[in-house]
């Protein structure tokens, strides 16, 4: 069964999930145009929820958290005019 954010919302309540996915600011980026540094709020302010989630559930919540900061469609799908290599995906020893 495909996991969705609705399942987590039903289980923990919309308010708790909404607070959980918010970005928690750590620091500015190194250079002026760099993105600031954040962690997912749940990891600090709701560790009970964060630690109880499975890997897939954590990743789902994490993607929802990314959505609060970035255009995830751009970040995760679009490659603009970039060529991806055939093979060569691993590091040489």
């Amino acid at each position: 069964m495909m996991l969705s954010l609705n399942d987590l919302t039903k289980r923990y309540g919309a308010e708790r999930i909404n607070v959980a996915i918010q970005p928690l600011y750590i620091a500015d980026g190194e250079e002026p145009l760099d993105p600031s540094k954040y962690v997912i709020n749940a990891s600090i302010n709701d560790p009970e929820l964060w630690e109880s989630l499975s890997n897939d559930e954590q990743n789902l919540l994490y993607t929802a958290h990314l959505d609060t900061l970035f255009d995830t469609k751009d970040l995760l799908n679009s490659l603009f005019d970039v060529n991806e290599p055939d093979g060569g995906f691993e590091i040489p020893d």
Partner: protein
Amino acid sequence: MQDVKNRASREQLAILRHLNKEAVRYIAFGDFALNGIDNSRTIGNVQLWIEPTPDNVERCNKAIKNMYGARSITQLPQSVVTNPEAKRTLTLGSGEVRVAVYPAISGFHPAEFKEVYQRSEKGRAYLPSQTGKLDGSVGYRQLNLNDLYHNVQESKSIHKAWNLETIERFATKNDLTLKKPDGSEITAQDKVSISSQTQRKRRTHDPRFEPNEAGFRFEIVLQHYGYQLDKKKSRLTMLGGCTKLESKAINNSSSSSRKDCGTKVLWT
């Protein structure tokens, strides 16, 4: 314990693939390397320490050409070989998060690259997806835990304390002992002295910053923001033994101890 996996954007993963394909020698450090041990951090820039040798710089430039096409003029200058400095030389990528290339990093001499590379760890970065599954992994090399700790410790990063704590927590959770580059153990005392360096120092008591009976001394605040008293156009008045400059606009206090003497103060 949750299985920690590093994440990156699609473009960052593609750049790493191209670097791997051309066998570029690099080591990830900084926040990206920390993301490999802390799964709660948001995707940010990937920071890479590139071996500053002519061959490696050439391979890196070939990877950039493969990535962005032959017409791309972006390249790593050969000058980094003779003059490697611990500052960003090149930023790759056009998205919101990018790949930053450094010929040197805090805590290590550029000539130490070979040794640090040999003891570096392999990591994997994935693309997060809307379903919670991770996709399209890429292998990369990152500083080992001890070197990463040393690098953060020597860096001037403002979230140094946060990063050190992340590594310490990871080491405790996995029953690992952190070591200095010379092989000696990092003691609890070292940790305390490091964190005390990164803590904000308490301001010493300065009576000028004490609030007055009205709540605040506005002249100090105005001076702090660069305003200067226009002495020609202002009159000074003595209240309670100390000089106070008050403008009519600011002085709304109804305190009986205070007299409005028609004080006129102008700030320029």
